[in-house]
């Protein structure tokens, strides 16, 4: 889920990992839980991993993206909006 990073308050230590200089995937250094994806492509957004929510049932996904890379065994409902890729590359391919 994407939201404005200006509205995000973070408590506790986190460790950033940059797969490319332009992208960020931060995680908890104690347990490894992935917290977000960020990219310089979208500086006004932080993409939070939904499994970290206290109540992940609150935000049902509205679309599937990168479906060109979809793995056959991953359940994907029919009839939901999907996009084969992004309109701009996410800048995470080294």
């Amino acid at each position, binding site marked *: 889920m994407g939201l404005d990073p200006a509205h995000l308050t973070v408590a506790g230590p986190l460790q950033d990992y940059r797969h490319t200089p332009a992208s960020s995937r931060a995680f908890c250094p*104690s347990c*490894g839980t992935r917290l977000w994806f960020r990219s310089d492509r979208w500086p006004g957004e932080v993409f939070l991993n939904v499994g970290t929510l206290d109540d992940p049932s609150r935000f*049902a996904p509205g679309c599937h993206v990168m479906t060109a890379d979809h793995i056959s065994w991953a359940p994907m409902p029919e009839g939901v909006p999907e996009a084969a890729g992004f309109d701009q590359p996410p800048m995470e391919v080294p």
Partner: protein
Amino acid sequence: MTQITGRCLCGAVRFSTPGPVLWAGHCHCDSCRRATSAAFTSFFGVPRASVTWTGAMSAHATSGGTVTRRFCMACGTQMTYEADIWPEETHLYASALDDPSHFRPEAHYHYAERLPWVQITDDLTKHPASADPA
């Protein structure tokens, strides 16, 4: 036999095992969901002694110290789930495989904990909790 190989996002941690794959499926439990920060987790079990590792991992103990989850110290990718009740097994994540298309899920576990917006339409066995009796 063809080796089953995988790696973390940054590539610092790698594993290799000849198998065999003991079971494979999707887990919907809250702790797997939170550890992988995804809607559910797809993983499989192999004999613990069969896995060869390279690279540095951190360990995080959960479930009162009876479960250990290990992850890459550099990029955070979750690599293993190991539980005291299955001391001969290591559970590896399908998404860490070098070729995840080889994964063949057989069942859903902790299906009673699945998120309401996760739509499953397959014919796989749905275990309300673990496949093993508590």
